[in-house]
């Protein structure tokens, strides 16, 4: 590794520009250092790659299709391709990372897996790979989220995982993450912590991005088959911590002609006080072991965000994304709860696909990017991010909407 940063490659200390690093207490040093010194050698070992690729193919169902959504394209007057991560085993892209990390954990000789989860998607994906490999699995989940996401709690239990409620602080994802980190501190020898997003201390953001990068690796060759060019004009993805966006952007990060559009959750509106739009509302800070943008009070206390989508309900953002925002390489938009709901119903009717609420935020941004629709965004949109009839737009459909049916049913009742 060199000490220069590219968008793909953080420097040796895990920095993407000003963001990243490993702000961890000494109690975590051995574990994180073990991971840092070994992860690249392990994951680029041919035997690892062979098993990883085999499981992605035969177990997770990859490659996922790149689907030319014709009616949606017509509606927006452009060419739209959906990257169907919703068709992955367990219903979202999360499994790409958990397969990679369980294989890594085995090679590190770890016998016990811990994870945090918000909506439960990463918890389910972790419980799944632990069942696959017969490894003990403990998932920390905020007490409030356990109440809100009962079906995913049941799935994790059926898969043999122990779900432990996080009862400290705000009792949601950030506190579940704190509890998982504490568990790791208290179990320094036999445990591997499978972080679910491109957050946490170095090397997690880079490692998770590499495991998720299979998304954009596939997009390139699939797009070439369909259009003759590997490069789209735009890639759109939702961002909470940012793992599906990191995966969808990864092999386009160094392609300056490709517009990378990240869509955050505006909740009730960016400035409503009930929002999770971290790049709009956050300030540089340290959360969960890395320096990034963090939603916080003037006194540096981390605040509780809001989004209708539990997967985007996180007060931070991965350091790679903070750097994409800071450097202007990525365009960061946001979509409200209501806009995400409309986009979900629209995709269901136009294409027969019920998307996850998270992914619906990415779809909702099409309204802002289309000059004909010209919906005004709360965040300024660079002119070259706008789409035209000649654009080739890839939207990462990160997950399916089954888990969100209670929310969708409520929305239908209100109409």
């Amino acid at each position, binding site marked *: 590794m060199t000490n220069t940063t590219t968008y793909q490659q953080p420097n040796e200390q895990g920095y993407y520009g000003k963001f990243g*690093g490993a702000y961890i207490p000494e109690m975590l040093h051995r574990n994180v250092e073990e991971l840092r010194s070994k992860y690249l050698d392990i994951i680029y070992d041919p035997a690892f790659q062979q098993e990883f690729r085999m499981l992605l193919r035969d177990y997770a169902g990859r490659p996922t299709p790149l689907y030319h959504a014709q009616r949606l394209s017509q509606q927006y007057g452009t060419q739209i391709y959906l990257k169907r991560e919703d068709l992955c085993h367990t219903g979202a892209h999360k499994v790409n990372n958990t397969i990679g990390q369980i294989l890594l954990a085995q090679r590190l000789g770890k016998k016990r897996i811990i994870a945090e989860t918000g909506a439960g998607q990463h918890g389910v994906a972790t419980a799944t790979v632990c069942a696959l490999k017969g490894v003990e699995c403990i998932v920390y989940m905020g007490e409030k989220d356990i109440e809100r996401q009962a079906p995913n709690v049941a799935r994790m239990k059926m898969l043999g995982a122990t779900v432990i409620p996080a009862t400290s602080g705000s009792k949601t994802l*950030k506190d579940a993450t704190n509890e998982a980190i504490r568990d790791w501190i*208290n179990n320094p020898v036999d445990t591997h912590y499978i972080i679910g997003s491109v957050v946490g201390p170095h090397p997690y953001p880079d490692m998770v991005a590499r495991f998720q990068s299979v998304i954009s690796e596939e997009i390139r060759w699939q797009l070439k088959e369909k259009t003759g060019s590997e490069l789209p004009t735009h890639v759109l993805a939702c961002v909470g911590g940012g793992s599906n966006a990191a995966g969808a952007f990864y092999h386009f990060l160094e392609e300056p002609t490709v517009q990378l559009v990240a869509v955050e959750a505006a909740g009730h509106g960016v400035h409503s006080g009930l929002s999770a739009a971290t790049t709009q509302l956050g300030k540089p800070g340290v959360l969960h072991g890395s320096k990034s943008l963090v939603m916080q009070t003037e006194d*540096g206390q*981390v605040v509780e965000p809001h989004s209708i989508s539990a997967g985007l309900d996180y007060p931070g953002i991965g350091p790679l994304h903070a750097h994409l925002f800071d450097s202007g390489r990525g365009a960061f938009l946001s979509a409200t709860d209501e806009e995400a709901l409309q986009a979900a119903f629209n995709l269901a009717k136009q294409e027969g696909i019920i998307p996850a609420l998270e992914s619906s935020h990415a779809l909702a941004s099409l309204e802002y990017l289309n000059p004909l629709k010209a919906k005004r965004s709360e965040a300024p949109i660079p002119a070259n991010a706008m789409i035209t009839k000649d654009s080739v737009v890839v939207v990462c459909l990160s997950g399916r909407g089954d888990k969100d049916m209670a929310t969708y049913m409520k929305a239908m009742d209100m109409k």
Partner: protein
Amino acid sequence: MNRIQELFKLKTRNILNVYCTAGYPQLNSTLPVMKALQDSGVDMIELGMPYSDPLADGPVIQASSTKALANGMTIATLFEQLRGFRQQIHVPVILMGYMNPVLQYGFEKFCQHAADVPVDGLILPDLPEYEYENEYGAIIQRYGLKFIFLVTPETSEERIRRLDSLSTGFLYAVSSSSTTGKDKDMNAVNNYLQKLKKMQLKNPVLVGFGIKDKPTFQQACEHANGAIIGTAFIKALENTPDMEGAVKKFISDIKS
């Protein structure tokens, strides 16, 4: 000379350092609790600055932080409370907290205000040695503050030496790899402390995490210069109508 150095010059054994959370149990308890600790004979005070996400702390200390934040405690308020506190408090005081609130306050401004009141040293468990050397250590030293690194039983000998060379007040030996407030296997702790003692480190060593009463304090002091008590003390302050009495009893039970 810094109060921490003075203390270790006068006393090298059985040093009792007690942790309390600023703004707990009430917003204005900070000074009265510190005063009661000093009057009961503690040698040093570690004053916690509450944070919403204290990763290295267990549930008891986190709950005290949550309460302190609900009471309205902030770093700015703490420095207000500490203005002129040296008229009453003469023991060394170390501020303990997490990076995020300090960065928001402004790292240099924080060090300046800490040196102005003055406190004697800092413990920032999520400021790793790389960042300390690269950026923050120079600022801390410019304001004459001591900086205390942590070591654990998982820390390699080479790394212990390195952290000892960077530490300026004392070395904080975490008794086992854990968050605060967990019970420990004291035999394993003994072996680890003996190892540290044999290394003949530059800094005095204080043991923390899992020290909760007289037996655990005495055991820790056998192989180290002293120990730090946090969780057990915070528990002693919970729901007590007589704070001063509770502090006095807690400390005298340990020192008796």
